[in-house]
């Protein structure tokens, strides 16, 4: 049977689809928690892109970058969820539409 290779574009298209789904989640959902999950989705799509490029170029640097993206994501989630808990404590809501103090 003929060997079928998965091209680089296939991985990139999957990463683009995942990124777009995450983008839709950030733009149209209202719960701050779901928005955070969508951001995680977008970060993971970019990670997939990095790892795919890393393999197809034969260089390890892409995988190292995934490392850094993961640590940034961990820091972001820790601080972001702490902010979310603080907002919920003060405003009794986790909806981004209800937190509009700065809106003119």
């Amino acid at each position, binding site marked *: *049977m003929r060997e079928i290779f998965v091209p680089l574009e296939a991985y990139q*298209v999957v990463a*683009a689809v995942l990124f777009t789904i995450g983008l*839709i989640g950030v733009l149209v959902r209202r719960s701050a*928690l779901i928005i955070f999950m969508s951001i995680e*989705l977008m970060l993971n799509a970019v990670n997939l892109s990095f790892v795919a490029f890393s393999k*197809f170029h034969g260089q390890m640097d892409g995988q190292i970058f995934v490392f850094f993206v993961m640590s940034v994501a961990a820091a972001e989630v820790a601080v972001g969820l702490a902010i979310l808990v603080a907002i919920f404590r003060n405003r009794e809501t986790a909806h981004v539409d209800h937190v509009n103090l700065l809106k003119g």
Partner: protein
Amino acid sequence: MTEAVLFALFSVSAIVFAFNVVFRKNPVHCALFLVCVLLSLSGMFILLNAAFIAAIQILIYAGAIMVLFLFVVMLLNVKGETPLLTPGAAKGFGFFFAVIAFAELLWTVLTRGGAEGTPEQAVALPPGFGSPAEIGRVLYTTWLFPFEVTSILLLVAVIGAVVLAKRKFL
């Protein structure tokens, strides 16, 4: 052949689960579907000769970060939102700009952004590619300084989380 089948399996499952993450009402369901997305992606990392990254993905993302998410869902006791999506024109604009962004991404990927030099086939990988030993060697030689900066970032994040969690500062 096996690679193509596994790639199709992982990519379809990742995309289906991702849709469920965004369009589910219950935040707990969203979080659990996000775990499924992360597991599919770690399978794809294994296909891409990144076994160590796949293991880290399961340990840190599916393990630590998702536990944090579920913890906050439990702590806040958030209900499913009604209506699900943001009302009014913002929803239409959201989908519109997302579609535009997707078209741009697709154009960049399929035309390679007009750039030359991206290989058609994977180059022959050196032995030990993606192994923990090789990752450690690159991380602690070429990327040593960014690695140290990461530790400061994590320290700042820990301090920030503790300060925000204290009641008297707010």
